[in-house]
């Protein structure tokens, strides 16, 4: 009698370490507590970075005046609304898109080095943009050309890698090969170009938010909004990407199809971002790894990666335009400096402990099997 009662009161799922289960009727969602905490912290960091970017520059504008300018009219309308806000909003959108793209591609490739920079997207966009800038194409065609270039390069990589089952190593190898090829093409164009055009192309290749604004931000924002349903799906689909292929197939995942879909989503987001801000390297590589290490998850968490990317790019842009006197340092130079230094710090201090705490694919699978159909958020 007592025994039956015990069985009844026992929850249907085992408690998941580090997670909180939210239930509503039939739907249950697990929230990785540490990921949620990291997201909250990065959201605060992002608000701080945006505030700094809006208030501090050649002209110091107090926080109160900044808020007043955003909601009404002050003497600072032009400084905030023309010079600072548009590029900051663009930095948030582009950083987030790059962070997500990096997280997706690294998860699919199961390789922390597989970012859009490594697998050809950035190189493809770079080649197309360099062509547009050195061949005298109209300025309005620059972003579309870069977008096309990035997507075309990614298509080439996927095509080369998708023969068979788009296995992770194949994907990375194909990406590296295509990227090297495209970069050499860019070099040829740069060498043959007029110095002024080559200089403009170089700045584009480093990546900058200077002179960009609402048009670019609106385009990218719309892109992210459209991708949102796909991202919600991806968040869940990513759970099986760190399982080995037979296991994933065993639990009913269409491995190749899912992997292609996730990779396509990643490269499309990366291409869209790179087309607007130039070949900003390293955000897509570092942001997901920083987010993963802080959240102590087995694969890069999407939302935290997006926020990390946004913080990196906003900070890089702000420091680049304020810290070097009259010289406007392109954001792309500083993303590498900021992200690289922080990632190295994390690797040096948190590396081993992390790896121990991260459950491997098998223990995760066991947890999932026991937990029944729970959704990770």
């Amino acid at each position, binding site marked *: 009698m007592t025994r039956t009662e015990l069985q009844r009161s026992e929850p249907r799922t085992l408690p998941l370490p580090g997670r909180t289960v939210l239930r509503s009727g039939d739907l249950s969602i697990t929230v990785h507590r540490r990921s949620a905490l990291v997201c909250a912290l990065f959201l605060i960091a992002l608000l701080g970075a945006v505030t700094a970017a809006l208030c501090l*520059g*050649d*002209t110091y504008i107090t926080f109160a005046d900044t808020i007043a300018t955003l909601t009404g009219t002050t003497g600072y309308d*032009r*400084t905030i609304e*023309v*010079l600072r806000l548009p590029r900051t909003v663009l930095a948030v959108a582009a950083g987030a898109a790059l962070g997500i793209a990096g997280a997706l591609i690294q998860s699919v490739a199961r390789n922390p080095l597989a970012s859009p920079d490594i697998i050809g997207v950035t190189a493809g966009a770079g080649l197309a943009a360099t062509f547009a800038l050195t061949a005298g194409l109209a*300025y309005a065609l620059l972003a579309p050309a870069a977008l096309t270039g990035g997507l075309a390069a990614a298509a080439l990589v996927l095509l080369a890698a998708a023969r068979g089952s788009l296995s992770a190593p194949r994907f990375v190898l194909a990406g590296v090969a295509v990227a090297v090829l495209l970069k050499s093409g860019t070099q040829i164009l740069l060498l043959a170009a*007029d*110095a*002024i*055009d080559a*200089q*403009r192309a170089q*700045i584009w290749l480093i990546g*900058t938010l*200077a*002179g*960009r*604004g609402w048009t670019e931000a609106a385009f990218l924002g719309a892109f992210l909004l459209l991708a949102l349903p796909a991202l919600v799906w991806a968040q869940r689909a990513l759970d099986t990407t760190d399982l080995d292929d037979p296991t994933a197939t065993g639990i009913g995942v269409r491995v190749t199809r899912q992997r292609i879909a996730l990779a396509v989503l990643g490269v499309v987001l990366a291409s869209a971002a790179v087309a607007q801000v130039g070949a900003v390297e390293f955000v897509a590589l570092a942001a997901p790894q920083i987010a993963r290490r802080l959240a102590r998850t087995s694969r890069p968490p999407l939302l935290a990666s997006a926020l990390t990317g946004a913080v990196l790019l906003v900070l890089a842009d702000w420091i680049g*335009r304020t810290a070097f006197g*009259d*010289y*406007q340092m*392109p954001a792309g130079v500083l993303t590498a400096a900021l992200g690289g230094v922080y990632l190295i710090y994390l690797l040096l201090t948190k590396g081993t402990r992390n790896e121990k705490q991260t459950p491997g694919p098998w223990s995760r699978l066991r947890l999932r099997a026991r937990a029944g159909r729970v959704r990770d958020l």
Partner: protein
Amino acid sequence: MGATEIPAEPQRVVVLDTDKIDTALSLGVTPIGAARASEAELPGYLGDLSGVAVVGTTAEPDLEAIEALEPDLILGSKFRQEAFYDELNAIAPTVFTEQVGVTWKENFLLDGDALGKGEEAKGLLEAYEARAAEFGASLGDALATQVSLVRFMPDQIRYYGPDSFSGIVLGDVGLARPELQQLNGAEDRRFGEVSAEELDTVGGDVVFYCAYGTDGEAMLAEYTAGELWQSIPAVQGGKAYPVDDEIWMTGIGVTAAGLILDDLEKHLAA
């Protein structure tokens, strides 16, 4: 880039390309701010520019610094600052010229109009052209002297053709150019590249040479000390003259053109 309302007599002018500094100062307008070339400071040949605020580089102007100066006119170049037009035009009426070098005279007149000094600009340009023609006539037979223009860049060595700024000045005088440097049939007749291994092919009875930036100067020092350079007849004859890159190359304007004429008079007039 569309129509722009500009003040009749702008007082606070910001210039974003090296040719505009020359233009403004030639017309007696001291800009309150100027962008510098990425490899260099503001040009020295225009006298004391300490009162001119540096507002970033020509490729990456510092928008907030420009805004802080509260200009009433901004002069720039489309091919350099096209991406910044909306922001610049929100700060102050902005006038862009299309090309550099080849069209320097048209640019000068357009910028002169924008500065409210169209007549003065026209007058200065006519005076320069008259002086060039007069100097050419005074040279007599020496006009057939083939003048060679060589520039050492950080990553290449160039010779300059008839459509370059200094090439146009030589043309205004009527001086001859070496066959190679006429760039006949080329689509772009501003300049060509000469391989370091064929430096002796640049030709010319007289050579004027200069270097862009400190890296260019290192190139110049290295190659002009080399055997190939020393084997050029003009060099052997003591007729190779180092000149100021700021004046001959990046200057671009009536003042710079006048200073080129000074150099030519000094070295060519018998």
